[in-house]
């Protein structure tokens, strides 16, 4: 599956954030996207995840505009944002089972436990998410992104708040995704953590995506 964005423009009020931005995430690739704060990385990621619409330009999944098959696209794309995108009053198991059920996962509770075990969070499966540290929350966020076994994985600042074992878990997820043919986009301010895995390194500059030197 190929997720492609072309000619993306986005402005917030008078501030132009993206000008003619283009990116492609192909099967089995790990694309690292770098850039300074406010360069538009998160905006582009939100557009790719279908959470935000572009003012101009097209986002396609396997050549078809995502807006035309939004529901299927959303289930094919796993998105871990730097916002939790979880209900803080629920436990990890409740959150993941709930979102999994809505996304059409066959046995959502079993899938949720499987992911919690894989990400080292099984002992906390029934504790309220609101009591978690940033790093623990980050693992649950990653688990939510993996619920539907997505073909495209978008990770916005996945290493924030993680200890060394957490970093290893994220990298293991990325390695596994690459082997399964899932295309990944990683936005981070800690490129050294993922650079050895990356198949391509890009940089956001002036609202455009460029090859990093």
């Amino acid at each position, binding site marked *: 599956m190929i997720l492609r964005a072309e000619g993306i423009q986005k402005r*917030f009020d008078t501030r132009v954030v993206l000008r003619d931005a283009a990116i492609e995430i192909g099967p089995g690739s790990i694309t690292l996207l770098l850039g300074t704060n406010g360069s538009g990385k998160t905006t582009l990621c939100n557009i790719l*995840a*279908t*959470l*935000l*619409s572009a003012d101009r330009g097209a986002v396609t999944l396997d050549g078809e505009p995502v807006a035309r098959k*939004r*529901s*299927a*696209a*959303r*289930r094919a*794309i796993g*998105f871990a*944002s730097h*916002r*939790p*995108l*979880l*209900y*803080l*009053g*629920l436990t990890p198991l*409740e959150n993941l089972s*709930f*979102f999994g*059920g*809505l*996304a*059409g996962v066959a046995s959502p509770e079993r899938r949720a436990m499987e992911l919690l075990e894989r990400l080292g969070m099984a002992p906390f499966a029934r504790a*309220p998410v609101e009591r978690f540290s940033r790093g623990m929350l980050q693992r649950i966020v990653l688990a*939510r992104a993996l619920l539907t076994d997505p073909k495209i994985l978008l990770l916005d600042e996945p290493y924030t708040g993680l200890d060394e074992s957490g970093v290893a878990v994220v990298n293991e997820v990325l390695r596994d995704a690459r082997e399964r043919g899932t295309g990944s986009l990683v936005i981070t301010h800690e490129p050294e953590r993922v650079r050895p895995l990356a198949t391509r390194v890009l940089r956001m500059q002036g609202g455009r995506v460029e090859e990093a030197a």
Partner: protein
Amino acid sequence: MKTLLAVTMKDLRLHVRDARFLATLALFSASLVLILSVAFGPIFNDPAREASATLWAALFFAGVLGLTRALDLESESGGGDALRLTGADPYALFLGKTLANLILISADFLLILPLVSIFFDVGNLVVLPGVLGVAALALVGYAAWGTLFAALAKGLRARELLLSVVLFPSLVPLWIGAVKMTNALWGDGSIDPVRDWIKVLAVMDVLGLALAAFLYELIQEATE
């Protein structure tokens, strides 16, 4: 149906776990009833009319509190966006949230009703089924329109204010109908003189639910 029930259960679970919110809602509603009963009393000119007005005014404002809390649950940590990312049917999500709001406001109604009856000395068991019927009709419409307007207010800074200011005038026919029918039941013991308001309330219910079928997805997807 599975999506609808899952969303309803999720919202109710979150409400039940937030004891502070439930206590605030209950105290706020009871305080409103108490203040209005003191304002109208101690000798009531037209207890049925004053009690009906108090009941529905308290329910409206308490309902706004509930709708705002439901909206906060979706926005405080991005849960609403995560809902969108599941690819679930937006109308089922709307109905699920509407049902949760309906249950919450109905629970508040059941708390307020005996207070109003006691403070204003109105109502009896004979007209109780009629009052419950009026409430069912009015609260379905309130929950549907309220959920739709709450989605519209998403992301706005003064959403509580906007919700009150926009929602109340939009639902004027619903409030008038509810007050008139409750007044008739408590005053004359019969709804017959104002029976036509049943149709108005039913139309408001259907309109709210039907409009959402067209608008809810658009509202959800409308981004900056």
